[in-house]
Structures are given as C-alpha cells and as structure tokens.
C-alpha cells in the first residue's frame, strides 16, 4: 500500500496525519483528564461526561455570539473569557450533580453508571429544547484562521496549534493541582483511605464535591476548545464518551501520565491508519488493538503495582 508514494510524499503524509492526530490527541487528553480525575481518582463512572463537555461548547458559542453582537471590537479575544465561563458553568453543574446524585452512590460504583446515563439523557434533551436540534458552529476570530506553511507540502492550521498549546497548559495546571498543591494531596488522601483522611481532619465530603466539580469543569474547557475545530450538537458528547473511557482505562485509571500516553498512542494510530483505509475501519482496528491489549494487560499501561 506504500508503493504508489515516494519517500518524500510518505514523509509529508506522516507529518500531516501526525499533526491531525495531535489535534485528536488534544481533544482526547482534555476530555480524559476530567474523566481520569472522576473515574480514576473517585471511581465514579460518569456517563454524562460528554454532556458536561457539550455544556462548555454551548457556553462558548453563546459567549462568541454575545461578543459578535455587543462587543465586536473585542471579538478576537472572546475565547479566553469563554473558556473561564465554560469551566465555571460545567463545574457548577458538576457540583450540583454531585450533591443531588453522586454522593449517595459512592459505595455502588456500577450504579453511578446507570444514574449518570439517565442524567446524560436529560441533559441532551435539555440542550435540544434550549438550543435546538441542529449543530451550531462558532465563528473563529481572524487570527485563528489560516495555516502555517512549514514546507511546500506540509501545512499546519493555526487553530490546531492553539488547541494543542491550550492542552499542554491545562495538563500542566492539572498535574500541579493534583500532585503539588495541598488540595491535591487531600484528594489523594481521601481516595486512598477515606476513613483515615477524615480522621486527620479532612472534610471528605467537601473534597469529593470539589474533585467532581473540577473534573466536570475540565470537561467544560474541553468542550470550549472543541468548538475551535468542530461543530456542536445536543448528542455530540456521546460520540466521544466510549473513546474517552477507553483512553483512561488503557492508560491505567489512576495515572495522569498513563492517560496522556494512551491518548497519544490511540490518536496517532487512528489518524495514521485513516490515511490508508476508511475512517471507520481505522477506528475499528484502533479500538480492537486497545481492547486486545487491555485483555493482556487489564490494569492498563501505567498501572500502580497493587496486589489483588
């Protein structure tokens, strides 16, 4: 299948597909980061994670419309405000959901799956009722359009670079919050031994609520970034949820590094394969490989060594 391309063409193909894979990687990482916190740290299966992401996307869309109508002069910078708003909206909803629903189910992890699936159905219908069933797209500011020409045959779109930079930034912030800050230590303490953490004076219920809210907030930011590269509809969240869970499980649920590594390998495999076969077959092969490896290594790539 390589026969009809010259070496130089192949090189460009791999670079271009690799770059497309990097954008997919950014989306995966952003979604999986929130899920790695909620699923990996708390053990809650949040099937509504995609809907939190879509909430972020709709908030971004509304902000961009607001700027276009009322503050056209500042439109080029609307995105930064939108991202903060998306984080706050999704985080606030997450906090509410934790209080109403999740906190009753910490001892029954599989039931969180059913309950959050119900939640995701309700959110989808809410989006459909409020924003309409058709997909909405955000108009990008002028500086984000166009692409950088690296060589004659290699071009990289600017919005892609922007999304990747954003991903790096958010990953660093999350890693700092989880592993270096006082609050992150509390989260990990609660995860490892809830009773003991409570005994040394950590308010475990509060830590749970804010952890869940943080995970949902990051999903909102992911949705916000997602509007840069695609359009958003009420059911878009569902398209990504299985992939995201696989990314988290494949990387080893409790490991941020594993999540990033698995997001990278999955997205690169898929986008490279996509060039040589149909998108659906590339997806099937990628998922099959992931499931196959998971059967050999059930705890994921970067598992903590625990005896079971």
């Amino acid at each position: 299948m390589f026969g009809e391309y010259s070496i130089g063409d192949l090189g460009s193909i791999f670079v271009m597909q690799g770059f497309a894979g990097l954008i997919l990687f950014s989306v995966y990482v952003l979604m999986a980061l929130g899920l790695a916190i909620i699923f990996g740290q708390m053990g809650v299966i949040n099937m509504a994670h995609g809907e939190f992401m879509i909430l972020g996307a709709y908030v971004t869309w509304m902000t961009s419309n607001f700027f276009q109508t009322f503050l056209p002069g500042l439109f080029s910078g609307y995105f930064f405000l939108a991202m903060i708003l998306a984080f706050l909206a999704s985080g606030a909803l997450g906090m509410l959901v934790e209080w109403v629903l999740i906190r009753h189910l910490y001892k029954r992890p599989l039931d969180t799956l059913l309950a959050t699936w119900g939640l995701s159905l309700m959110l989808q219908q809410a989006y459909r009722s409020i924003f309409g069933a058709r997909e909405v797209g955000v108009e990008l500011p002028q500086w984000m359009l166009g692409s950088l020409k690296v060589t004659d045959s290699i071009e990289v779109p600017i919005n892609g670079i922007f999304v990747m930079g954003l991903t790096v930034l958010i990953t660093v912030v999350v890693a700092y919050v989880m592993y270096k800050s006082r609050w992150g230590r509390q989260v990990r303490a609660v995860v490892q031994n809830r009773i003991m953490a409570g005994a040394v004076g950590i308010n475990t219920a509060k830590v749970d609520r804010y952890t869940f809210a943080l995970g949902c907030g990051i999903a909102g930011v992911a949705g916000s970034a997602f509007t840069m590269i695609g359009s958003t509809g009420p059911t878009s969240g569902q398209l990504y949820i299985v992939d995201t869970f696989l990314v988290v499980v494949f990387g080893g649920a409790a490991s941020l590094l594993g999540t990033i590594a698995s997001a990278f390998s999955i997205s690169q495999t898929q986008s490279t394969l996509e060039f040589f076969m149909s998108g659906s077959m590339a997806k099937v092969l990628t998922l099959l490989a992931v499931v196959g490896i998971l059967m050999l290594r059930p705890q994921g790539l970067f598992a903590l060594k625990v005896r079971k």
Partner: protein
Amino acid sequence: MTDNRFTNRSELIGILVLAVFLVVVLPLCLDVFRLNLVAKYLTYAFVALGLVICWGYGGILSLGQGVFFGLGGYCMAMFLKLEASSVANTKIQSTPGIPDFMDWNQITALPLFWQPFHSLIFTIAAVILVPGIFALVIGAAMFKRRVGGTYFAIITQAVAAILTILIVGQQGYTGGINGMTDLRTLKGWDIRPDHAKVILYFFEVGLLFVCIFIAQFIRHSKLGRILVAMRDQEDRVRFSGYSVANFKIFAFCVGAIFAAIGGAMFALQVGFMSPSFVGIVPSIEMVIYTAVGGRLSILGAVYGTMLVNFAKTSLSESFPELWLFGLGGLFIAVVLAFPNGLAGIWGDYVQPRIDRLIASRKPKSEAGWTDNSVADGAPAE
C-alpha cells in the same frame, strides 16, 4: 412438595400469572398491531432475563448485550434475507440471487460466510453458537485475568462500539446503516400478514417461558447459589476452591445466548435488523429494563421491559420532548430509591402485606411457605 428444583410455590404463582397475562389477557385485549408491539418488547425481555443471571446473580454488568442481540438477530436476518433474495425475486438486479444491498455495493457473488445461511438448521445453531462462543472468548479472556466490575463494563461497551462501526462500515456484507430490510418468508411461510404475527407471538411467548424455566433452574440449583455467593464475596468463594472465572464465564454465556434468542425473534417479528439495535445506546437501555424490573427478579425483568417500552412508545408518541426527561428521571429514581427495581418494591412492601393477610386467615403451620422468596439477599454492591 411444591418446592422442587425449579421453583417454589410463590414463584410458581408468579409464573402462572405472567402466563395468563401473556397468553390469554393480552391477545384478547389487543389488536394485532399492538400485539406485535408487545412481541417486539418481549424480544428485549430475553435480554433482560439474561442480564438478571449475569448481572443480578453473577454480579457482572455487561454493557454489550446489544452485541449478542445483534449477532443473534443478524444470523436470523441473513437466513431470511437469502430466502427473500431468490433469483425470481431479484431478477431486476445486475446479479440476480444475491441480497439487494450487495448488488448496490457492486458485489457480484455471495460472500463465503453467507453461504451456510441457506440452511435453517445451521442458522438456528448459529443463533445460539456464534454469540455463545463470542461470549466464551471475551469472558475467558477477561475473567481468567480477574478483570471485573467497571473495567468489564467499559470493555464490553467498546466491543459494542466496534461491532456497530464494523456493521455500518461493511455495507456490502451487512447492509450498512439501513441493516437488512424487507425480510419476507421463513421456509416459504410468509411472516408479514397478521395471522403469522400472532403465531410468531405465541411461539415467542413459549420460548420466553423456556428461558424463564432455565433461569429458574439455574437460580435454584447449587450453581445459582454459587453465583450469588460469588457476587457478594468473590474471594471467599475462590478460597473455598471454586473456579470463580469459570462460573462467571458460564453466567456471561447464558446471558449472551438469551440475548441472541431475543435478537433472532426480533428479526422474525419485526422483519428487519439494523445496527441501531447493536450499539452502546440500546445496550445500556437493555440494562435499564433489567434495573427497572429488578436485577434480582426473573419475572421482574419481563415486567420491567414491557413497562419501560410501553412508556416509551406511548410517551414518545404524544410528548416526544418529555420522554427523554421521563426516561432519564426514571433511571435516576430507580437507582437512588429502588435499587432492586419493581420487584424490590413488590418484595419489600407489597408481598409482606399480602402474606400477613393470608397468614392471619390461615392456621399458622401453612404460613411458612413464602419465606423462600426473600432468600435472594442483599443488592449487588
């Protein structure tokens, strides 16, 4: 004397009530269109029944039951499609004698894996064996390595996603997103007119009761008790010398085969099969039917399936917007308030009152029978 290997007295009464309801009451009350709808719901009841065994008793939550429903359904649909694509029926095609969607996709000869589906015996065997072996392979790979709980759920979900993408992508071999439509006859017998639908309905109800009795048998045998013990205290069962993995594989396979029978009946009853019954969304909905009916109750699964589907049909006809809110709210309510579903409400609130009523009327020595019905024990987690 009534407490034999299959059932005890209160369960027998429950089965009889269900039998009268399905065989006598519904056919008398409903027209053929509605009866056919009930038949469609009941195909999901097979899946829910399988989930009671593998989720309720075995503690294995599979989010990929749509895969087995689909495999069973596609096996049956392939047979029916071949019969509907006889040379006489398809003479306007460029290659007569092959299914129409193959012709549209420029395939000129019947693929090799389609060939054996000319035979009904092979098809019936395939409906059972293909999903059964598939479940065996997945189950062996997972349970031997002690993958369970949430990880198993997520991986089965991925399998459902893979199969859907594959079916949609391979249009020429599977009919793609439209699935296999226009199924007409079974061994020359037209399955489309009203009287055929009624006969198929009774056949399906019969098959459902066979499955109910198999489930009852598993539930009351030593096997069923090991399954429940394993769900509640897996390590203790393992330390007692049982092969936990093999019992889990067994429960998973039974669930898969029940789902496949449901799928095959679906293809016969509804006259088509499509990937929209395979993927993640239908798979989770099937789990919900079980949860609403009661994950520990064999009969509850049947009632739960009928109830949710009835609500879905009637609500989505008149209030399409409200329906998803209602369904979502139902999941949340069931999970939060009634973890054992309708059967739990019945067993916890209604039945004790009835028992007390009966006990107060009868001499004391006879009142002890109903105790067996609460032996199922605590919910899974």
